[in-house]
């Protein structure tokens, strides 16, 4: 028991929770935005990989860290546009297109990375984001260190939760976005083109995914290597169901998840005799449990995975 208290009482554990949670928050918000307008985006795993690669490469070539984040966002939006064009105007299978985007984006990332960095027995590194203390607030004992001594992108992710929730529930744009995912015919009758709105939302959501990936190479680690996203994208897809398509709950889900991840990492070193693979399985198994718990309760956007064609029912 004392081991447990030691882990939970340490500032590092809670600080790590926010750090591990940041790419999940960004990715989950991205999936949430896509699904709120009615389109599943299984491209996330590949888009995160591309964001991680292109963000890192940008910084490695001499740009500053925020430019790297921006480029990762733009790269994500580009793949989002591809996904959107195939699934929205053409109405192709969202499952298969998304998987295709993931396979394409990740293999494309590895290809570009290998071209840029031909040999890598020791992967080259960049100087990553440093924690930026927020004056005064970071001096609060415990809470200050956990909440106000994080890196820039973590603050950005937290702000984006509030922004997305505000846009979705408090603005005309948000109403239109939600309608696109619930009843695109009614939206069209209002004079708003659901096709364009969906394309835009998917691009924005994919930009968030790209930035989530870039956080991995520019803040959590400092180098890029293949398969580094490790299913985080899929976990985000599960978290959106857990969050019942609500931004605030998405934050909660991502943090809960990150809590368990940070906890199992510490438990691995504290508890002996248990194979480390069992700990590593936990995040994936937890996601499945989250899906089981929420599957029937969650309120799915009514038009999710239904392509919209004008004049067709």
């Amino acid at each position, binding site marked *: 028991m004392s081991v447990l208290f030691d882990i939970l009482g340490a500032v590092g554990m809670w600080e790590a929770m926010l750090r591990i949670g940041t790419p999940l928050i960004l990715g989950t918000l991205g999936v949430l935005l896509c699904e709120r307008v009615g389109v599943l985006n299984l491209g996330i795993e590949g888009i995160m990989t591309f964001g991680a690669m292109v963000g890192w490469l940008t910084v490695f070539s001499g740009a500053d860290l925020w430019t790297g984040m921006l480029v990762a966002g733009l790269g994500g939006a580009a793949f989002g546009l591809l996904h959107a064009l*195939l699934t929205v105007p053409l109405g192709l299978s969202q499952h298969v297109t998304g998987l*295709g985007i993931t*396979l*394409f984006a990740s*293999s*494309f990332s590895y290809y570009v990375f290998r071209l840029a960095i*031909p040999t890598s027995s020791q992967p080259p590194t960049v100087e990553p984001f440093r924690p930026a203390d927020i004056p005064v607030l970071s001096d609060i004992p415990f809470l200050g260190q956990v909440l106000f001594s994080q890196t820039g992108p973590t603050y950005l992710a937290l702000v984006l939760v509030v922004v997305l929730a505000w846009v979705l529930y408090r603005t005309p744009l948000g109403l239109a976005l939600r309608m696109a995912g619930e009843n695109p015919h009614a939206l069209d009758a209002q004079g708003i083109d659901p096709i364009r709105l969906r394309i835009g939302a998917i691009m924005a959501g994919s930009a968030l995914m790209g930035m989530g990936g870039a956080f991995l190479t520019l803040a959590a680690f400092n180098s890029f290597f293949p398969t580094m996203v490790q299913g985080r994208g899929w976990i985000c897809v599960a978290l959106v169901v857990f969050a019942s398509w609500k931004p605030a709950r998405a934050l909660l889900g991502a943090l809960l998840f990150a809590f368990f991840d940070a906890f199992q990492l510490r438990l691995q070193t504290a508890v002996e005799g248990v194979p480390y*693979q069992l700990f590593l399985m936990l995040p*994936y198994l937890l996601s499945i449990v989250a899906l089981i718990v929420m599957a029937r309760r969650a309120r799915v956007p009514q038009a999710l995975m239904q392509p919209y064609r004008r004049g067709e029912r």
Partner: protein
Amino acid sequence: MRFERRDHPSALLTVLAPVGAVLAALLVAGVLIAIAGANPLRAYGLILKGAFGSRLGLSEMLTRATPLILTGLAAAVAFRARLWNIGGEGQFYLGALGVTAFAMVPAVAALPGPVAVVLCLMAGAVAGMVLLLVPLALRLRFGVDEVVTTLLLNFVAVLFVSLMIEGAMKDPLAFGWPQSVPVPDAAVLPKLMARTRLHIGLLIALAMAVLVWWLQARTVFGIRARAAGLNPRAAAFAGVPLGRTLVMVACLSGGLAGLAGAIEVMGVKGYVTTDLSPNYGYSGIVIAMLANLNPLGVIAAAVFSAVMFVGADSMSRALSIPSYIADVTVALSLLTMLVAIFLAQYRIRR
């Protein structure tokens, strides 16, 4: 601009769709090769030469196509019934692990050759099945979408393999490398070509493709599975037992992916590692789509992917183009194939 469904999609367009899709993918990949500073035509020439130009190349290509045919079939049968089995990768690994664990039973090594081989293959298939039945049960019981669960289980499966090969099934003679004990000679598949890696698993894969084609085209199960995919409500109304049909589809799909893993161990590797599969499971999805879910088309699509992968390896050595270009081309051909199928079914009206 709008799209209008063709009343009668022409047979010619349906046949030309995959060809056009592959050409389009090769065109885009060619641009990427050109950007890297090589002549795309020369690169493609080298890829073909690498895969067909020598006895060794050809045998390697067919060895590579073997698991791809099986994982492609696994995806094709599942997708046809709208069971989104994205877990081929995990089922492949469990199949590989299953056969190795089964072969550790001392009695297996003493069995006469053919019996041991058949039992081992079945052990692998069953292991793959079990891994797909879990997400199917979650879908039928709790309404959990199987896409995400099968994807997540891929990671769990590989970690489980890692756990076993560093623990109970670790090879004590492997100098500390994490790999499983080898399967006994009784469970090793005979070679098809002397002095190559090509083994009779290829024939098993081809037989499976014919079997799946027969099941889908000539049996009640095939009709039911298709009906369940096209319109579950109508199918249920017509008396199709949806749950039971999906369970059978899952057994077939997971079994095929598990079989792929078992054959890879019994025919090529001899033991299990966590890098046994260069994404065979995920490539299977592309192959199934390229084949338009047709079991016999899967053979052609698997050969195409195998040519790309094996050929790109030798091409990348000659031109110093990253061999990831093969993955890029195959993934791109999935996207272009989706568009090609669409264009074969719809016409564009202004």
